[in-house]
């Protein structure tokens, strides 16, 4: 079903003051070109404001069958016929031809710069003759580059436009850059845009793209040639260009191919072969070109209106480029650089039009069902204009909805949205015109040709003409008497903003009844503005500002609709209101001002909840805050605690809020309600009440309460995290609960480590680089909660770095941490048991700071299984080795990296009393040999050096010998014993050793 509205997309209309019936016309930039004088003269009219005036006229070299104006290059290209020969010609510098009787210079395409003089071209019209080996049938100019595509029976020829400089003056010329041999179709229409080409026959459309690199193996020349040889048969069959010739020739049977739609690679099965042949002339086309098929459609003839060719076939093939918004930099006219974003393809059968989007994926965007047989159609970025015999119709298009999604994959979120591509198109207007024949579009105008009742008079006219010819007389007067009924109109299209306003007004008719109608019309109006804003030629800032304001307004209207109406899409109220830039208060005012105060729409509640959940800057006034509470009391009372925690509600009267909460609590009590009440009590400075609320639930439940509403403790503002009053209170009264809550937030991804860091720094008013103790407590607590590995490493990194800083700073302020090393070891496995030799080392010298426990925690972490020692190594450089406590850290690391020998040496040097403890503890299976290979000889050497006086060494030697005697058999034991020394010293171990042997 196509919705029909009665808007006014067409504004004023002018009549092009031609003296004779126009036959061929075209338009572009600011001009309309009309042929007259039997097609041998072109009259040009400029259109500005309310006027349409003759600009100039010039004679052509033959009767113009077709012409096209290219804005880029400002040239007119024609297919002309004289003496049954069709020629292709381009008219440049035609604006010089004000009188129609100046000298015109003619040249062949492909200028030889040296043969041209300075005098030519600047102020003289030039005709470029472009000979072709086949008669040209159809023309198309690329709107982006000014290149020209000419369709002949079996080939398409691409002429690329260029300027060559002749004595410093740019002169327009073309290169015949490429020939595309086609078989299987004879083009009735062609369209060229960027590297996209579409060709159309009576019932077939093919769209393809020229690419410079072959993405896939296409049939190369050698395989294509036999193909070409084979195809003509098929070609000629298909070539019989009109179905009518079939019809007239074989009355018994008419066989048509099945209608089909092929997309992308599938198109290869369509029997149309395109073989590009580069002429090597154009610079940018020198690379080898490949054809990639995008779309093929074949239709069954539409016999609704009888059997004439005109009424069953395709028409109005068009490719419409869309440019990237914002990428367009305003430049001099005719010199603008636009980046292609997307291409749309339109073509039409008599009763239905088809709009495809081409760039990334080929997809059918819309099908237009016309109420009566169409004659011609033109697609513009904003609207589709279709003419039937007596109606100019205007349909809405979905291009902007497609483009928005092409440009912004995140369009459909809670932040922004756009009406769907799939939304039904509608007819904005059907305007009566008598005898519509042709339509064209340029800028803000459509040009339409009407010829009334032409069918009724032709016989008479033809007869009289024949007669006049015989007599050798011209009888122009007689003719003009018989054809009064033509007109060439220039109709201005209504500016988008104006049409938008009308559509909004229109939609208000539906306002009182809850219907989808208003949403549909408002969505149409919204899309209209979107497409107007996408126009790369929109450079006037005032105009742009007006459009943007209208755009915001339209978002507001759509927000209103979705907030109020019960639709499946009521959640769209949120993004539309956001895009409208309305403040929360404004939205509330708008919604409450409507006549539905008793129930709040789903969409509105969704918007309100989301807005209050987000960290908006806006602070609602006290009255507005109360209003919000009342709304939630009616609609969703259980949300009140969360609503009150929103930073938007900072101005709420706490006493009022307390009353709402108490009412709520009377139904169902919960931790989050109590906590919110406690927060309100704090704001009222009622500490008693605060205590009472906090004591109402055990800590675990409070924790859940916080988790339900983290904003009780922290508020986000511009990427900052701000602790609430309650958090400050907890810091002083219940730090454990606060830390547990933050750990819970982190565990539940309500906050990240960086934010937690910020939170504690603000909380403890610690703005320098110092790490507040509470943050350390938080890290330690986080470790104890078994975080995932990534977090674990991160937190351990932070903690070790902190510990290192502390132990390296001898004069620090001691702090009391929440958990001791012992607590940590008991609460999680990441903190390991510290080896006895480490303790021995620590106790052997002056201890850095017992009080803080940072050294023990670090040692414990290093001894634990989780810390990767390699990642800790860089810290070692910062730790001095001046005392044994510090040295112990180095040795723990060395040991964990299996550097036993060096550790033994260092211990012997620095803390020999710990060496046997170290050896016993660390030297494990597989490296026992260290006992006799390293420790024993080292000890002996040192004892000798100390002349047998060092008791610590001697005692260590004894321990070592005992150990070795247990490990080695007698022979080996004897071998490792030193050659010197008193036998009595060693004997007990030998005896011990042989005893062991005996036991075994």
């Amino acid at each position, binding site marked *: 079903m196509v919705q029909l509205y009665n808007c006014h997309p067409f504004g004023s209309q002018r009549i092009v003051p031609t003296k004779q019936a126009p036959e061929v016309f075209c338009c572009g930039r600011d001009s309309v070109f009309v042929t007259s004088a039997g097609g041998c003269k072109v009259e040009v009219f400029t259109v500005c404001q309310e006027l349409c005036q003759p600009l100039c006229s010039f004679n052509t070299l033959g009767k113009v069958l077709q012409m096209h104006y290219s804005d880029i290059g400002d040239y007119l290209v024609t297919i002309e016929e004289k003496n049954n020969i069709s020629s292709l010609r381009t008219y440049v510098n035609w604006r010089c031809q004000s009188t129609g009787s100046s000298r015109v210079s003619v*040249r062949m395409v492909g200028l030889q710069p040296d043969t041209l003089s300075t005098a030519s071209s600047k102020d003289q019209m030039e005709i470029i003759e472009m000979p072709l080996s086949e008669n040209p049938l159809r023309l198309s100019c690329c709107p982006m580059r000014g290149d020209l595509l000419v369709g002949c029976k079996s080939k398409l020829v691409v002429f690329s436009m260029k300027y060559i400089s002749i004595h410093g003056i740019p002169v327009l010329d073309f290169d015949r850059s490429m020939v595309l041999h086609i078989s299987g179709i004879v083009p009735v229409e062609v369209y060229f845009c960027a590297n996209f080409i579409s060709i159309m026959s009576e019932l077939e459309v093919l769209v393809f793209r020229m690419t410079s690199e072959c993405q896939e193996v296409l049939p190369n020349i050698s395989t294509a040639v036999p193909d070409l040889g084979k195809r003509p048969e098929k070609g000629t069959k298909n070539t019989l260009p009109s179905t009518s010739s079939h019809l007239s020739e074989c009355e018994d049977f008419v066989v048509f191919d099945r209608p089909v739609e092929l997309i992308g690679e599938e198109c290869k099965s369509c029997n149309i072969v395109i073989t590009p042949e580069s002429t090597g002339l154009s610079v940018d086309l020198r690379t080898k070109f490949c054809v990639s098929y995008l779309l093929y459609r074949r239709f069954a003839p539409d016999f609704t209106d009888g059997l004439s060719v005109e009424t069953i076939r395709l028409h109005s093939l068009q490719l419409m480029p869309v440019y990237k918004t914002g990428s367009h930099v305003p430049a001099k006219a005719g010199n603008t650089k636009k980046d292609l974003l997307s291409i749309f393809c339109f073509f039409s059968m008599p009763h239905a039009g088809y709009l495809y989007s081409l760039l990334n994926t080929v997809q059918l965007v819309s099908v237009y069902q016309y109420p009566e047989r169409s004659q011609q159609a033109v697609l513009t970025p904003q609207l589709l204009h279709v003419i039937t015999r007596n109606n100019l119709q205007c349909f809405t298009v979905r291009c902007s909805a497609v483009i928005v999604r092409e440009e912004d994959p995140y369009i459909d979120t809670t932040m922004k949205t756009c009406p769907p591509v799939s939304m039904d198109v509608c007819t904005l207007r059907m305007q009566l015109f008598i005898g519509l024949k042709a339509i064209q579009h340029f800028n803000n105008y459509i040009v339409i040709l009407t010829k009334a009742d032409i069918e009724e008079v032709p016989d008479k006219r033809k007869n009289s003409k024949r007669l006049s010819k015989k007599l050798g007389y*011209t009888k122009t007067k007689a003719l003009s008497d018989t054809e009064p009924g033509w007109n060439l109109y220039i109709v201005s299209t209504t500016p988008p903003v104006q049409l938008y306003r009308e559509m909004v007004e229109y939609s208000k008719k539906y306002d009182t009844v809850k219907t989808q109608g208003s949403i549909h019309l408002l969505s149409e109006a919204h899309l209209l503005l979107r497409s107007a804003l996408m126009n790369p030629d929109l450079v006037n800032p005032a105009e742009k500002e007006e459009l943007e304001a209208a755009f915001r307004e339209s978002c507001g209207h759509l927000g209103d609709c979705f907030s109020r109406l019960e639709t499946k899409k009521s959640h769209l109220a949120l993004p539309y209101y956001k895009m409208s830039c309305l403040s929360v208060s404004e939205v509330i005012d708008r919604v409450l001002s409507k006549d539905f105060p008793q129930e709040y729409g789903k969409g509105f509640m969704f918007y309100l909840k989301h807005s209050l959940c987000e960290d908006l800057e806006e602070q609602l006034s006290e009255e507005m805050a109360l209003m919000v509470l009342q709304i939630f009391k009616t609609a969703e009372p259980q949300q009140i605690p969360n609503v009150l925690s929103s930073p938007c509600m900072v101005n709420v009267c706490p006493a009022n809020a307390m009353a709402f909460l108490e009412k709520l609590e009377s139904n169902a009590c919960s931790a989050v309600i109590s906590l919110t009440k406690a927060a309100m009590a704090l704001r009222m400075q009622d500490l008693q009440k605060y205590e009472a609320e906090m004591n109402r639930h055990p800590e675990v439940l409070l924790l859940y309460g916080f988790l339900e509403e983290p904003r009780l403790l922290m508020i986000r503002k511009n990427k900052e995290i701000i602790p609430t009053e309650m958090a400050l209170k907890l810091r002083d009264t219940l730090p454990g609960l606060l830390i547990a809550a933050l750990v819970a937030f982190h565990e539940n991804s309500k906050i990240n480590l960086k934010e937690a860091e910020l939170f504690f720094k603000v909380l403890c008013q610690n703005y320098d680089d110092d790490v507040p103790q509470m943050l350390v407590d938080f890290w330690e607590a986080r470790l104890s909660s078994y975080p995932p590995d990534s977090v674990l490493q991160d937190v351990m990194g932070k903690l070790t770095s902190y510990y290192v800083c502390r132990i390296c700073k001898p004069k620090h302020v001691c702090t009391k941490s929440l958990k001791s090393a012992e607590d940590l070891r008991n609460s999680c496995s990441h903190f390991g048991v510290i080896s006895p030799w480490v303790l021995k080392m620590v106790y052997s010298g002056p201890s850095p700071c017992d009080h803080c426990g940072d050294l023990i925690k670090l040692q414990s972490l290093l001894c634990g299984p989780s810390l990767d020692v390699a990642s800790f190594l860089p810290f070692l450089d910062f730790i001095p080795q001046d005392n044994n406590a510090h040295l112990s850290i180095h040795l723990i690391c060395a040991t964990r990296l299996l550097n036993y020998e060096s550790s033994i040496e260092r211990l012997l040097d620095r803390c020999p009393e710990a060496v046997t403890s170290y050896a016993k503890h660390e030297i494990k299976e597989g490296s026992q040999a260290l006992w006799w290979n390293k420790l024993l000889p080292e000890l002996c050497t040192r004892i000798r050096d100390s002349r047998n006086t060092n008791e610590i060494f001697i005692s260590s030697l004894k321990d070592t010998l005992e150990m070795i005697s247990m490990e080695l058999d007698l022979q080996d034991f004897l071998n490792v014993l030193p050659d010197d020394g008193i036998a009595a010293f060693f004997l007990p171990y030998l005896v011990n050793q042989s005893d062991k042997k005996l036991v075994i």
Partner: protein
Amino acid sequence: MAGKSSLLKVILLGDGGVGKSSLMNRYVTNKFDTQLFHTIGVEFLNKELEVDNHSVTMQIWDTAGQERFRSLRTPFYRGSDCCLLTFSVDDSQSFQNLNNWKKEFIYYADVKDPEHFPFVVLGNKVDISEHQVSTEEAEAWCRDNGNHPYFETSAKDSTNVSAAFEEAVRRVLAIEDRSDQLIHNDTVNLHRKPKASSSCC
């Protein structure tokens, strides 16, 4: 009025400097400029006129006479309805070259029936007193080469210019029934063939 007329392509050929552009200018704009530049390539002007009740748009193609512009001008010979071979009466070389011009035209214009193609010969610059080519000489050449009409013209003082161009139109209309070229030819060539042959008789 402008529209319902036939478009006749008339081409001016002849050596450089014989006054082709001046003839065209004199005829179309009734001006004469002694300082005219060499024509580069090909240019044309339209002139609407009525000859024997035929309203005609004459498209006068002016060409560059210099040899070096040959490649620029020859592509445009095709489709001409009449060729004006021009020489200067004070330059016998330009007269002798008429043969070559005629040959060049017939070759490049791809004239199907050179015998009956309308040529008009113009001896320009008769205002100059010292003639190197006599009227008799020129008329003899015209007679020997297909009975072309000959006009002695002067673009400078406007002698015979209109007469020469009008004669060209008359020749075209006479030699061929041009009614099919009149633009309202929805009627197709059915009557044409017999008529054309009858005009031969």
